[in-house]
């Protein structure tokens, strides 16, 4: 069952942003981390085995939502679990009032399920919990907050076997991301040079060339703010400074980054001093981003969640034609998002095949379906190599492309849980 936590995640990122690094799942945090489709969290390094029911390495907690005489109730099968992966299986028996279940630590959501309704199949999610006090939150229940105690120090660190293969994959993916970031610095430097030259056509080409790098790794590099910057102020938000769009223009900060350059090149068709400033700032900010994002390490579920995040980007911005409003290069970004997602999947594949070969095959097939659909729009004569995503084309074709992406999103969303609980 799909979950749609994008907005929640964005909110969390916004409010929790004290540190420069807000990215979900990066190993440099030591608190439970909210992530997207298959929430998972990890703390520390080791723990004793517990005695509560466990399956496949995860403790099992059944969550039952009921309505007796109109009083809606949320019940947990265990109120204490050992540290480590915990799988919550939520069954809504007959509570119309409760549609959401969350696991909370220090006011932060470390895992949740939405769209719970009577009559649907039970849904489950797995989070890796370290020792401490947690709450299960069931908005709509008469008693909506239940205590959950996690005993032991921290989650066990799996060693050997599939986990080792997966870990090897994350290292490879880290190298891929680093390579993309490095290439992005070079590409925006080239864009700046083309803009400075005043040659509109070569600047447009350089723009189309530079765009894909950010889109391939966006879920890994979004969420950074400049060191010491106020996270509520977009003037220090690197994602805003690099990738703001007309649709999220913050008047107080103004136009910036890729799309400010895009607007000048493709809408006004003129390179001004302002354009040159935009391009120079873009190079500076991408360079800063490369410094901040350098040396990121990943857990296997980060790759799965990151891939899901990239597909959300496709659905939210590219298919709508919102991302490249002036250049209509949305399909170039679309292809880059898909490539980034497929890379993440490819690095998980050797380990995932051991865990769930059917799922691995399904996801691989759906990636092929997406790429096949995209082929229809390839055009070597077009800027960026894809047909312009005009309003007219969008009207006739958006639903088709959206459908192949959705078909991929559903199975992809189940990967995170699989890899997080792998031994």
């Amino acid at each position, binding site marked *: *069952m799909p979950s749609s936590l994008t907005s929640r995640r964005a909110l969390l990122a916004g409010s929790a942003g004290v540190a420069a690094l807000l990215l979900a799942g990066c190993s440099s945090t030591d608190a439970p981390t909210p992530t997207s489709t298959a929430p998972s969290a990890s703390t520390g390094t080791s723990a004793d085995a517990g005695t509560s029911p466990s399956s496949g390495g995860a403790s099992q907690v059944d969550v039952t939502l009921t*309505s007796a005489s*109109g009083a809606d109730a949320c019940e947990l099968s265990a109120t204490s679990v050992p540290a480590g992966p915990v799988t919550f299986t939520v069954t*809504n*028996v007959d509570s119309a009032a409760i549609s959401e279940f969350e696991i909370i630590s220090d*006011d932060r959501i470390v895992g949740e399920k939405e769209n719970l309704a009577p*009559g649907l199949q039970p849904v489950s999610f797995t989070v890796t919990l370290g020792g401490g006090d947690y709450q299960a939150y069931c908005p709509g229940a008469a008693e909506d907050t239940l205590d959950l105690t996690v005993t032991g120090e921290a989650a066990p660190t799996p060693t050997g076997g599939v986990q080792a293969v997966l870990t090897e994959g994350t290292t490879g993916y880290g190298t891929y991301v680093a390579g993309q970031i490095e290439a992005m610095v070079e590409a925006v430097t080239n864009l700046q040079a083309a803009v400075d030259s005043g040659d509109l056509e070569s600047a447009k080409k350089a723009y189309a060339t530079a765009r894909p790098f950010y889109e391939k790794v966006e879920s890994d590099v979004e969420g950074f703010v400049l060191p010491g910057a106020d996270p509520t102020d977009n003037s220090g938000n690197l994602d805003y400074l690099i990738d703001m769009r007309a649709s999220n223009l913050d008047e107080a900060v103004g136009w910036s980054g890729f799309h400010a350059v895009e607007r000048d090149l493709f809408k006004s068709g003129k390179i001004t001093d302002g354009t040159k400033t935009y391009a120079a700032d873009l190079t500076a900010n991408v360079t800063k981003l490369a410094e901040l994002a350098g040396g990121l390490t990943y857990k296997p579920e980060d790759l799965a969640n990151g891939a899901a995040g990239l597909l959300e980007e496709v659905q939210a911005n590219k298919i709508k034609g919102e991302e490249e409003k002036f250049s209509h290069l949305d399909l170039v970004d679309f292809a880059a998002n898909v490539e980034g997602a497929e890379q993440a999947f490819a690095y998980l594949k050797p380990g995932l095949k051991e865990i769930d070969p059917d799922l691995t095959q399904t996801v691989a097939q759906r990636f092929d379906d997406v790429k096949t659909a995209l082929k229809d729009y390839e055009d070597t004569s077009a800027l960026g190599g894809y047909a312009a995503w005009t309003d007219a084309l969008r009207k006739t074709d958006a*639903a088709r492309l959206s459908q192949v992406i959705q078909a991929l999103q559903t199975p992809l969303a189940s990967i995170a849980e699989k890899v997080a609980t792998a031994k």
Partner: protein
Amino acid sequence: MTRPSEGGPAPEAGLPADPADRAASASPSAGRAASASPSAGRVASASPSAGRVASASPSAGRVASASPSAGRVASASEHIETPRLSRRALLGGALGGLALGGGAGALLGRATAPETAPSSSSTDPDAVPDSTAYEFYDQVHQGGIRTPPQRHAIFASFDVTATTASDLQVLLARWSASIAQLQQGRALGAVEPTRSTGVPTDTGEAQDLGPHGLTVTVGLGPGIFDERFGLAARRPAELAELPRLPSDQLRPGLTGGDLSLQACAEDPQVAYHAIRDLARVARGKAAIRWTVMGFGRASAGPHQSTPRNLMGFKDGTRNITTDEDYDAFVWHDGADQEWMVGGTYQVVRKIQMHIENWDTDYIADQHAVFGRTKLEGAPLTGAKEHDAPDFGATGPDGEPVIPPTSHVALAAHENNGGLKILRRSYNFTDGMAEDGQLDAGLLFIAYMNDPAAFVTLQTRLGRVDQLNEYIAHVGSAVFAVPPAPRRGSYIGAALFSPVE
């Protein structure tokens, strides 16, 4: 307050009328919630309105149908005592003015309080207390069909954008749970989340208003059974897009849809809140295709006085009221699709009225167009509203007294092989049309166990109805309406079980 039984066929009036006997006072088939639901306590603690919600129902004196099925059977002879509240207050100022255009007395067909003062609770026989709440689960049929028509309605047709059966299941399940909440006057989750970063899950505008007799009826369009969701084998034989009918002037933006929601309530804001929040629940899975806001019910329900449409004529004089007629003409027997047992079909037509022209028509012609008198609503062959029309009677000139091309003559069951449909219409206005005329008319909603019944009637009407000079059918859609879900399940759940 109940209406006396009619011995036989009675006169009829109204727009796309079905010829239905207005027989004995019928039942509260939809299963009135007898009292404040136990859940009201929660609402109570959370909002100031709680007191009203909790206390009103019991005193309302509604007769509860003990169980849905029992209610239906037993209800034929059951009379409901309805508390009296201000009709004008319920209508609200702006809409009230329009609806009461013919004068309050004329509108109600009986004496009412002076227009200058809101009437007391003893003057409106059809008033419903704002605490009236209908049960959603464990009814035989969905609400909003046999439920006595509320004063206001919002109809919305949706396109499903989800592409998987599981997404459609989640949508129908979430809608079902949400409707169950809304019909009890409860919010859909938090209006004011405790966490500062929380986004309200309920939009809040119905807070403190009470349930106001809200019902939300869910329909499944023909598109649900196309290739998208693997449900082709579940398509009932009768369900298909309506054929083009004579005089149709349909506009693409006002036709069709994969899903429908009909929200009816005594308060327009309660009805709108329901549609708005259900559309919100559907986001990403379904999007509104077209919508109509209806006011001033234009079809009588059981034991209600006959209301008037915007042409000033009574509408629904001979609507379906008896268990026998409901079983014969409205409820589906599930013959080819078991999941439709207790379901029905919903036909929706947005009918524009050429009001300015109508307003210049002389009264004798208005009478001839409908085949009825205006104030009393009597057939031209009778004296009282519920007198049976005599289609064979001729005048001194040898011509039929009720013209064969009058609306009543064409729609009457006597002239259609006994065919009847349940009408549950509302008036609408969309302000001014581009041509400088009032944009208003009838949101015609009818229920029947085979859409072919509507096709038959409208084919006759569309060809020769004198009324066609003054109306145009501009919107159209048809939906299958599944039965109500059991507690713990959802509307349409049976569709997704394996085919045996």
